[in-house]
């Protein structure tokens, strides 16, 4: 609170010294006194990221209390996977996070391989890395449009979503699917790269660079966007571990925690990349950091394309997958998605069916604990921007 009022960008801070009355650090909220209004922001609300809702209590248009409600997209994946054989799991896991399905596919396949002791071929690892990095690009593009849109700047959203579509075209060429790719199966990947794919990716990378140039000029350097995002939703470094914040959101607060660098998986150890961090931790910092990560991801895509081997196996030998039994054990596989640490915890009991699959959605705490804390004392006008800047993704919260 002190930090916010010191910040020179936040030109309006609610004076909470007198009203509402505080008790034990919490405002006394009596809805019958007509001083407060309860508003359900969502699930049917254009400013909410997906199908979730925030129950806010406002005094004027300043939020004094917020509660997140999720569960509108719960499909019970973890239960469904207990009923399915190992090989039947991979088509459904990608539905867990819709904007960026590949991280789920990778984690589940890798968890199965880890439990069964299968080592995937070199080329398959490269292809997986390529796919993951491309999906990061697509996810960031989607988010960038949302961040600008939450401030009422529709044009950026239109541009980035259209650009994301060109990336989806590449995915379609590579995997056969536009949104859900179902590309990584246990033991490797399904398909090899099509002919001339590399050139087309490089073309799209160049187009994306060009677009991002425009966006940097129009959005990131925009005075109004800056004035609205700076000082909004500051996450201090202490909060990061207390609230389980991960990914770019944590890195914007100065915590150098990127799984691709700290615990490299697949081929990330062979790629050149540096840890991007920032130190203020407000919404603008997060926006800028994610923008830099998008540029970094584009660079990584280029690097991967240069290093990918021409020939090689793409699929390790599996036993008959319909009768595939995995030895008992437990493992936890995590990967860096656009929102941060996305992990799968898998327990096998030696039968054909997984005993338990647990998906740790990257934004699990962002949307609930963190949002509920940060939403207090801001106004309704900033709630959408705050929510997008935390990069919440409801389907991975409730799975």
């Amino acid at each position, binding site marked *: 609170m002190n930090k916010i009022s010191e910040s020179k960008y936040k030109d309006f801070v609610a004076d909470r010294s007198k009203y509402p009355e505080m008790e034990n650090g919490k405002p006394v909220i009596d809805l019958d006194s007509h001083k407060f209004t309860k508003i359900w922001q969502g699930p049917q609300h254009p400013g909410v990221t997906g199908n979730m809702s925030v129950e806010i209590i406002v005094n004027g248009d300043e939020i004094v209390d917020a509660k997140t409600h999720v569960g509108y997209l719960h499909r019970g994946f973890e239960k469904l996977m207990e009923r399915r054989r190992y090989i039947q799991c991979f088509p459904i896991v990608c539905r867990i996070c819709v904007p960026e399905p590949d991280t789920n596919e990778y984690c589940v396949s890798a968890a199965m391989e880890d439990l069964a002791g299968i080592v995937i071929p070199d080329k398959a690892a490269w292809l997986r890395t390529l796919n993951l990095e491309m999906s990061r690009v697509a996810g960031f593009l989607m988010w960038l449009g949302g961040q600008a849109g939450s401030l009422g700047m529709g044009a950026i959203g239109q541009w980035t979503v259209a650009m994301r579509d060109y990336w989806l075209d590449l995915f379609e060429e590579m995997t056969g699917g536009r949104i859900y790719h179902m590309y990584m199966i246990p033991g490797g990947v399904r398909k090899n790269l099509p002919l001339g794919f590399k050139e087309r990716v490089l073309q799209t990378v160049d187009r994306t660079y060009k677009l991002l140039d425009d966006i940097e000029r129009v959005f990131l350097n925009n005075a109004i966007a800056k004035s609205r995002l700076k000082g909004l939703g500051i996450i201090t470094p202490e909060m990061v*571990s207390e609230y*389980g914040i991960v990914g770019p959101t944590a890195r914007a607060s100065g915590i150098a925690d990127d799984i691709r660098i700290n*615990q490299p998986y697949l081929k990330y150890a062979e790629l050149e990349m540096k840890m991007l961090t920032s130190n203020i931790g407000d919404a603008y910092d997060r926006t800028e950091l994610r923008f830099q990560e998008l540029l970094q991801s584009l660079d990584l895509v280029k690097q991967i394309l240069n290093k990918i081997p021409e020939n090689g196996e793409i699929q390790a030998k599996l036993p008959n997958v319909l009768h595939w039994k995995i030895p008992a*054990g437990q*493992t936890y596989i995590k990967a860096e998605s656009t929102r941060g640490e996305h992990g799968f915890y898998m*327990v096998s009991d030696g039968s054909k069916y997984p005993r*338990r699959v647990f998906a*740790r959605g990257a934004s699990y*705490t962002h949307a609930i*604990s963190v949002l509920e804390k940060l939403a207090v004392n801001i106004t309704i006008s900033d709630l959408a921007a705050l929510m997008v800047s935390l990069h919440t993704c409801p389907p991975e919260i409730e799975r």
Partner: protein
Amino acid sequence: MKEKIDRLRKMVNVLQVVEKHPDLYFITLEGNQLVMALGYLKNTLNFKHLAFMQAVDYLEDNKFMLTYMVYNYELKANLGVNVFIDREESSMFSIHRLWEHAWQYQRELYEMFGIDFPGSPRVDEPFIMESWEEMPPMRRDFDTLAYSQKTYFPRPGRETNDPKEQMKKAKYPNYPDSPKIRRDDE
């Protein structure tokens, strides 16, 4: 990592240590020492980040296994802490004072598995399932297919033949129990 676990051993009774990877260990603890162990792990051994906590249902042993996954920023390593609790009177100590977001997981576990965490904030508020009257759905004795068919008006699908039965009927009508036909070995 081993050194940290040895330090932990001086505090609490570590029943089992499994090294899955150099940066991923699983240890098993006793239930009543869990909160102390996690507090020690967090505050002294620097396992600051709670990645998740969740439960596994061992119906046949009548037990739940709780897993707490913590992460050390300096070591860059994960440590999974397993605890077995009784399935019938499932209740566990709450760790919401150690991590601010732990109540979220506890609320989900309360709803999906029926594990109680006394003292955890908002633990009995519905998290995902609204108006749910059956048993907690993630328990293994809850049959989701039967429930779905009973409740949600399944649309009759096309007529399909189970390959095993179809082979028997169409190809080998004279050998009803032919040993050549591979059976499901469940």
